[in-house]
């Protein structure tokens, strides 16, 4: 046991980063699950990383906003490409996504043979370090999250095609740099998967609650057990997902039983 890391000023920024990621990823995750394109976040994140490496190869300063812009442009191009394949070969969207993922990942390896410093950036993008998050990083992501949430809300009935892939690409690019691919994947998929039995706004509430419980308990456990935070949160997210699933199933049985009692009278 280790109590010294359990301090709000250490865990607070990481917790806010987690909440921001959840804000956009919980609704997006339900879409991803419904479309059956689970690995799209890995593909988009890899394409964004490839964009960063390309930008550096072309001489863009690695610490400026140029890198963020390069990542966003690359992710949007990847999103546009996937929109096109989705329209052209809808039955093969998942294998297309897989192929794009390995192409982007190996493209990075090929480019990196001449630019080893890009490798550090690539690793940052994939593993992510949620504890290193700073306020100056959180503000742009918060603004972007609000914009993306507004777009998702305004076009909620028609969030398909280029609009879906565009929103998704921007959300992933921002969140991956904040918390890394593993957490992004878990934040997208686990809350959505845990609440498949529910519908509409109720499902969104359950999914958000699952996600928040996962992040908070993961951060606390990582402090107390002295373990890397990102990996710990993935495990608590899944744990909270299982608990949510069991609670919802129990609630569902009660409701069915109540409905049956009413019906029999």
């Amino acid at each position, binding site marked *: 046991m280790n109590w010294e890391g*359990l301090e709000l000023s250490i865990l607070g920024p990481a917790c806010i980063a987690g909440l921001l990621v959840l804000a956009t990823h919980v609704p997006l995750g339900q879409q991803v699950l419904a479309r059956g394109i689970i690995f799209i976040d890995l593909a988009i994140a890899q394409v964004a990383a490839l964009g960063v490496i390309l930008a550096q190869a072309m001489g863009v300063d690695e610490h400026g906003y140029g890198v963020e812009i390069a990542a966003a442009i690359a992710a949007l191009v990847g999103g546009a490409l996937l929109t096109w394949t989705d329209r052209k070969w809808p039955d093969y969207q998942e294998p297309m996504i897989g192929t794009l993922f390995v192409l982007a990942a190996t493209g990075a390896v090929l480019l990196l043979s001449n630019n*080893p*410093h890009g490798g550090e950036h690539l690793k940052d993008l994939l593993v992510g370090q949620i*504890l290193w998050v700073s306020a100056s990083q959180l503000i742009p992501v918060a603004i972007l999250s609000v914009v993306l949430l507004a777009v998702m809300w305004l076009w909620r009935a028609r969030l398909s095609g280029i609009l879906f892939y565009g929103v998704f690409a921007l959300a992933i690019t921002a969140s991956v740099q904040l918390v890394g691919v593993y957490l992004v994947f878990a934040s997208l998929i686990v809350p959505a998967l845990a609440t498949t039995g529910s519908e509409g706004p109720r499902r969104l509430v359950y999914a958000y609650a699952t996600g928040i419980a996962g992040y908070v308990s993961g951060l606390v456990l*990582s402090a107390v057990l002295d373990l890397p*935070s990102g990996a710990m949160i993935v495990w608590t997210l899944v744990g909270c997902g299982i608990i949510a699933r069991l609670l919802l199933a129990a609630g569902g049985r009660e409701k069915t039983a109540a409905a049956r009692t009413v019906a029999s009278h």
Partner: protein
Amino acid sequence: MNRFALLLVTVLAALGARDAAALDVFACEPEWGSLIHEIAGDAVNVDVGTTALQDVHVIEAKPSLIAKVRRADLVVCTGADLEVGWLPQLIRQAGNPKVASGAGYFLASDQITTLEKPSKLDRSEGDIHPQGNPHFQMDPYRVLAIAKALAQRLGELDAGNAAKYQQGLANFTTRWNTAIKGWETKAAPLKGRKVVVHHWSWVYLNTWLGMEQIGALEPKPGVPPTSAHLASLVDLTKSAPAFAILRAAYQDPKPGDWLSEHTGVPAVTLPFTVGGDDKSKDLFGLYDSTIDKLLAVVK
């Protein structure tokens, strides 16, 4: 928050975990933790951020690391950009002005001259450190120079114990100089012998013991080998011939084993820092073990 801090203090006090009067020192790598222990003994509390089985170029963020830097009076790290991927973030996140710069921020690389300092900065040369090769813990003379500067710094921060630190330094210097003579005599058969390395981690050891690096598995630092590079390395290792393939305890054994299989030259896993093997319990053990392992294959 205040109540929580109070609770924290109470818990720590109840555990008797730390001596409130003593300096708190955070060392980035085990070799510096060990060196501080040699100089200051029990007069300081030392936390070490990494282990010998970790690649210190990259580490995982844990809440406890931030907490340790937050309460530190002194941070002791290698420098020369070795920890550039995480130390700046760690110090920023800890928000502890004592160690952000000035006397509380001690970089070993500032106390010595480094080798392999590039004359030009060019990405195409690989993952180079503009401030030179940072793996200087395997040169005993540089370690001694760092020990002197460290004792001085400890005395500046904790004037009450300054004499004690100087005493500790004098004691360490005597034992270390004796040990260096022993190592140099013992390692005489290594002089002029050729080695192949995994990462460019051994230039200081090689320079000290008179060994020669003829090739590296990573053609440029941090870059994985290509097939053409491996083919030429096999020829070079056989024809030179190299007597050993050197790698650190934390490194993947596969590339070295592959080269060893193709050339018959033994691959040797050296501890690289304190804690890298069973015998490397302190700096003396680290050097003893390193030289023993090299002598075991030199024949």
